[in-house]
C-alpha cells in the first residue's frame, strides 16, 4: 500500500541527503519525494510517498521523528488530503492530430505551454489519477518527453 507523509524539516544543507540515507538504510521504498522551502525560510516541507505495510510505516514515522532535522511529521494516509501532482509532457503533434490533442487538453483542464511545428508541450496538474489519465490518452500520439513532480499534499482544514 502507498502511504503519504508530509514533514517539516530544517532548511539547511545535507538534510535531504540525511533523510534519503535514512530511507535506504532501513530499506524503505520511496515512491516519490518532493521538497521545497516553506513561507518560513528556515524550514522546508517534504512530501514523501512510501510503499509498504503498516509495520514499515510505523518505523518510517518513528525514524523520521528521531531525526534531529525533522521538526514535524504528519501522516496523511487515509485522511483524504489535498493532493496535487504536476506533469509536463511533450507530445508529437502533426497537423492531422493537433486538434484532437487540444481537445484532450481542454477536457483535462490542462494547458499548452509551448508549441512547435512537430510537437506541443502540455502542463497538467491534479490528483495523480488525473495525471495518469491524460498520459494514457496522449500516449498513442507519441510522448517525446515527460516529467512528473510526484505528489505534494496538505491536510484539509475541515474534516467533513
Amino acid at each position, binding site marked *: 500500500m502507498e502511504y503519504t507523509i508530509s514533514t517539516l524539516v530544517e532548511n539547511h544543507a545535507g538534510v535531504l*541527503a540525511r533523510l534519503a540515507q535514512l530511507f535506504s538504510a532501513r530499506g524503505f521504498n520511496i515512491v516519490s519525494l518532493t521538497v521545497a522551502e516553506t513561507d518560513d525560510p528556515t524550514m522546508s516541507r517534504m512530501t514523501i510517498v512510501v510503499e509498504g505495510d503498516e509495520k514499515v510505516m510505523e518505523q518510517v514515522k518513528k525514524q523520521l521523528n528521531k531525526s534531529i532535522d525533522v521538526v514535524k511529521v504528519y501522516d496523511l494516509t487515509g485522511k483524504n488530503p489535498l493532493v496535487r501532482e504536476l506533469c509536463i509532457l511533450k507530445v508529437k503533434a502533426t497537423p492531422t492530430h493537433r486538434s484532437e490533442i487540444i481537445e484532450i487538453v481542454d477536457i483535462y483542464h490542462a494547458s499548452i505551454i509551448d508549441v512547435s511545428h512537430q510537437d506541443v508541450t502540455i502542463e497538467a496538474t491534479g490528483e495523480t489519477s488525473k495525471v495518469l489519465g491524460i498520459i494514457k490518452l496522449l500516449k498513442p500520439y507519441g510522448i517525446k518527453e515527460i516529467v512528473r513532480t510526484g505528489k505534494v499534499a496538505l491536510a484539509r482544514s475541515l474534516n467533513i
Partner: protein
Amino acid sequence: MKRTGSEILINGLIEEGTDTIFGIPGGSVIAIFDTLFDYSAKIKFYLMRHEQAAAHAADGYSRSTGRVGVCMATSGPGATNLVTGIATAYMDSIPMVAITGQVATKMIGNDAFQEVNTTGITYAVTKHNYLVKDVRDLPRVIKEAFYLAKTGRPGPVLIDIPSDISKAQTEFKKLPEKVNIRGYNPTYEGNIKQIQQAAKMIMEAKKPVIYAGGGVILSGADKELKSLVEKTGIPVTMTLLGLGGFPSLHPLSLEMLGMHGTKYANIAVSDSDLVISIGARFDDRVTGKLDEFAPHAKIIHIDIDPSSIGKSVDVDMPIVGDVKLVLKELLKYVSKCDIKEWVAYVKDIKKKYPLSYTKSEKVIKPQYVLEQLYDLTKGEAIICTEVGQHQMWAAQYYKYARTRQLLSSGGLGTMGYGFPAAIGAAVANPQATVVDIAGDGSIQMNIQELATVSNYQIPVKVVIMNNMYLGMVRQWQQLFFKKRYSFTCLGRHKDCSPICHGPGSHCPDMVPDFEQLAKAYNVKGYTIKNPKDVRGVLKEALAIKGPVIMDFRVDQEENVFPMVPAGQPINKMLEHSVT
C-alpha cells in the same frame, strides 16, 4: 574578545567538562593541535596509533564513567578510520563527540588532498553530525553536539571542522547557555496511565520475568531496578550490555539470555507469561527465532527511543521514557507478586542447569582463566572484551556486581574494540584494575596500541585466550559446516595441507609470539601453557603497575555453550559439542 575557531573549540570542550581527548593529529587539524598544546593542564591528550583505537578509547572512557568521550582525527583517512569506532558507539548508544578536520571550505568538493565527505559517510552511524562552514556557528554546534550526545537515547555526534574555520576569528566568551533544537524533544516521563496499566499486568502475572538491557546502565537505573526486583520478587535476566545493571550473583539473577545465555534464563523467558523489557531492544542475538520468542508472554517494553518499540516484537504495553524515571513511578504501583511457584521453578532450573565446562589439568580452559581472574580481582575489575568466543566466556564466567564494569561491543560486534576501550577506561579510572579479555584474532586488530600503553604506562592487563583460531567462526564451522575450518586458522602456513580439519602436532608455531611482541614494545609479556601456572601468572601480572600481556595457550577447540543456533528459538540450546 576575538578568538580563533581552535580556541573556541578547546574552550568549549573544557566548558562541557572534557578532560581527556584521544586522537591523532594531521594536516587539517594542525591549528587545533597547536592550540591544544597550550591547554595541557586542562585537557590530557592521548596520542593513539590508529584513529579507530582513538574512537574506541573515547567509547571506553564513556562507558566506564557515563561522561561524554571525545576523540579527534584529521580529514580523509583520519575520519574514515574513526568510522568503525563511531559505528560501534552508535549501535550501543554511547555518548561520544568525534571531532574531525576537513579541507578548507573553498576546497570542499574539489577532491582535495585528504578530502572525504565525512558528514555524508557518517550519516548512518551518528546520532547527528555537523559540518561547520562559519566560525560563528561553532559555539552553538559544540553546545548542541554534547547535548545531543548525552540526552535522550545517547549516541555519537560528529563535528567536521574545515581547516580555515579553525583559524578564522570571531567574538567569543562562552558557549550559549541553552540549546534550542526544535526537532529534538525526547520523552523522559512515562505516560502515567500506561505505567499504571503495566503495574496491573505485573501484579496479575503468574510467571513474570524482567529482561534488562543497556538502557538500565545508560540511564543509571540500577538502584531502581534492584528496588523493583526486591519489591516484586520477579527474576531478572540481562542482555550482554545489561550485565552489571543487576548483580549477577543475586538469588533472583538469571544472568545473560540469548544465543550464549544461561539455560535457565532462556527457559525462564520461554516459559514466562510476562516479559518486562527495560532498556533493551529485542536484538536477534537475544530473541533467536522471533516468532517463538516468549510465546506465552505478554510484553511490557520500556524504552526512551520510540523507534525501538514494536520494531522487532509486538508489544502489549509500550512505555516511552527514561528507564530510571519510569521505574521510579512504576515502583509506586507494585508490591510483592504472588509468584512463589514460579520463583521456586526458576531457582530449581538455575540449580539444575548451571553454566559448566569440562575441567582439565592438561590444557588451559578459557573459562578457568576467567574464574581465576574473577577470584583474584574479587570481582571488582573493569572488564573490556574484544569480540568472539572469549567475549561470551567473559560474559558468562566473570560475575558483574555493578554498572559500567563490562565494556563490550554488543551491537556492532567490533573485533579490536577491547584493547583501546581498556585504555580509555584505565585513564578515566586510574584506581581501577582494567583487564582486556581478548582472542588472538581480535587483539591483532588494534595491536599497535601496545605503543600507547607503553609510552603512557597505562596499566591495562591484556588476557589473550589464544587458540590460534578465529574461534567463534571456527565453532560455527565445527557445528554447522562439517568441521571445514575455512580460513579461520591463524596459524595457517604455506606448507599446511589445503584441507585441514583441526589442530594437532603438525601445526606450525603461533605467529606472532605475543610475549616477544610485548617485549619489542617494552611491555611485560607472559606465555602460559600449563593450567597449573594460570593463577600464579595472573596474580603476578595483576600486581605489576604498568601494562601486561598474558598469552594463554588455551584448548584450541573449546566451544562456547550453551548455544542457540542462529534462527532457532532460544529454548533449543546446544549444550555440548556434537563431534
